[in-house]
């Protein structure tokens, strides 16, 4: 059972452009939605996270948009840079649990 669906699988963006990655979930009990960034050979690193009580959270060039009614959330990377090239995973967690349910990942390539 796939708790969190992520798209696209891969994304190529020009330097300076906007990268958008989308996730959808089914379980309305989820109340914490982080995004992780993973470089080859490294562990996932927490990038930004949101809770359902807000519709948007921004940290620098990274923004999460959250649509509770649609059960969707997305990551926007503004002014994308080659150094942003990595795999991005969305995840979700229920308040009574400890485990993250990860999406399938998006491989982002930013072309100079």
């Amino acid at each position: 059972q796939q708790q969190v669906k992520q798209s696209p699988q891969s994304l190529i963006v020009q330097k300076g452009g906007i990268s958008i990655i989308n996730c959808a979930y089914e379980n309305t009990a989820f109340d914490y939605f982080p995004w992780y960034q993973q470089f080859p050979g490294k562990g996932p690193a927490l990038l930004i996270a949101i809770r359902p009580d807000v519709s948007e959270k921004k940290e620098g060039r990274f923004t999460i948009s959250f649509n509770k009614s649609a059960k969707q959330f997305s990551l926007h990377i503004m002014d994308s840079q080659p150094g942003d090239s990595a795999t991005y995973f969305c995840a979700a967690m229920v308040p009574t649990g400890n485990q993250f349910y990860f999406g399938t990942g998006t491989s982002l390539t930013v072309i100079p």
Partner: protein
Amino acid sequence: EPEVTQTPSHQVTQMGQEVILRCVPISNHLYFYWYRQILGQKVEFLVSFYNNEISEKSEIFDDQFSVERPDGSNFTLKIRSTKLEDSAMYFCASSGQADQQYFGPGTRLTVT
């Protein structure tokens, strides 16, 4: 900045052998986790550990797996009799609160 460390970085073992993967979580963290990532696939939850006991585990975490916190700093994952399909990256994570999990760099396990 404190970080989660894991050893070894790469472990090669023969099918049927026991392996122990080691992790040193961030020192003041209370929650500990193991995840795995089969090459090119999403990160999957294995187990969470809090207050010296397993708090949650997935279907993957069967009787072949066990976790232990043998002292105040280490957190280990043992696979009793490895199978070919256990080949994956294994990530340890820790958190001070249940949501903000920090991942280690991973141990690549290769079962031959």
